[in-house]
């Protein structure tokens, strides 16, 4: 049943209601109890909805596949994060872990500042850092951007100082000729660390 408050006049409250396609017009006394009922049943929602955190931007675990991430050091676990059903990477099992993602991001965009975002779990005894290596297009021969010997420009380094379960983000300055990145995540120390929903974008 959906109810729409239509009109209130002369002590009556006119409520139009629809149920299974049928439409009825009800006139009920405009007592305060009716107002309370309307507020009670219409202003409280029990299902939240979000478009954020989609699984299509630099997601780490693509149904058991590493997406485009590669493990350089350590033995991270690709699987559950905060919830059994929400997949990411658990860096807890090794004291030193390095993950890398190569991405050609900037073929069609010219923004000089982007946002690096991630959802992280970090214990106080763990050091967690992001490094972003920027590359300009190379002059070599090859089928892909990386085959054509791209030119290294600069590395941006970001330490994660927050701890606990956090939504983390930092602004990233893009070099003028930056056309691709290697995003590297480094975890050092014994303790719990998890990584999910990494994005580099607007």
């Amino acid at each position: 049943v959906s109810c729409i408050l239509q009109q209130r006049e002369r002590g009556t409250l006119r409520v139009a209601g629809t149920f299974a396609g049928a439409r009825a017009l009800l006139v009920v006394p405009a007592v305060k109890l009716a107002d309370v009922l309307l507020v009670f049943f219409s202003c409280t929602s029990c299902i939240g909805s979000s478009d954020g955190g989609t699984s299509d931007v630099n997601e780490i675990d693509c149904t058991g596949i590493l997406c485009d991430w590669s493990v350089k050091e350590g033995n991270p676990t690709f699987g559950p994060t905060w919830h059994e059903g929400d997949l990411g990477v658990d860096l807890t099992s090794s004291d030193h872990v390095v993950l890398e993602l190569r991405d050609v991001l900037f073929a069609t965009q010219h923004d000089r500042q982007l946002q690096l975002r991630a959802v992280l779990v970090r214990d106080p005894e763990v050091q967690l850092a992001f490094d972003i290596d920027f590359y300009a297009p190379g002059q070599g021969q090859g089928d892909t951007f990386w085959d054509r010997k791209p030119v290294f420009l600069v590395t941006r380094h970001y330490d994660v100082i927050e701890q606990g379960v956090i939504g983390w983000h930092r602004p990233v300055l893009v070099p003028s000729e930056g056309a691709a990145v290697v995003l590297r995540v480094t975890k050092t120390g014994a303790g719990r660390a998890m990584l999910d929903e990494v994005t580099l974008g607007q």
Partner: protein
Amino acid sequence: MKSAALFAALAIIALPCVAHAQTQPAAPPEDDPSHAPPSSEPKETSKGPHLVGDVRGLVVIRPNDNYARHASTYHYDLPGTALGIGLTGGVEIVKHISLLASAHYEMNGADRADAHLRIASGAIVGLVRWAFFRSGTDTAFFETAASGGFGRYLIRETYVNTALSPDTFAQSDGAFGGQLGLEAALVVSGFRAMLGYGFAYSPASISDRVGGSVNAGGHEIALGLGIWL
């Protein structure tokens, strides 16, 4: 398990009816003048046990130790309140004191793209309600009451991300717990409208993998309509 729940639900519904039926005096023979009620006696509704019951809408705020914050961090915007429905029925066995059975169910959740997180909880509780203030006539009166009870509380979490996997992840817990409440009610011609607040505690809880948990029970606001016969 389902049949046990069905039996419990039927027992809740049947209990007041059976109790009410047992308290009805046998019908006197029509030709026996000694059984005729004196004309000065108050109406039956003022003295006998009364059948009490209502259906109520609920807004519940569950005790939550960082579970909702963690969900929100991972972009599941879990509302702070759960909506539910409850059934309460019983008998006012002596003046102002009612024995009741209550069952309720409430649910909230969050969607993140193709991922769906749901938390449902419920309880079956036996209650004693004391109407400590009552004003009006036999057929129309206002009352305020306090209640307390004990019962079984359940909480269940389900999660499915249809884009990644057809599997549904579920966890649940159950435990005994208790509740206290206050309510105000208006009774007119056998119909009863109520507004109440209660707090329920139960150790039944579910946990996430990073130290958050949420319990069954909690703060509860109820708005109901029912009978008082």
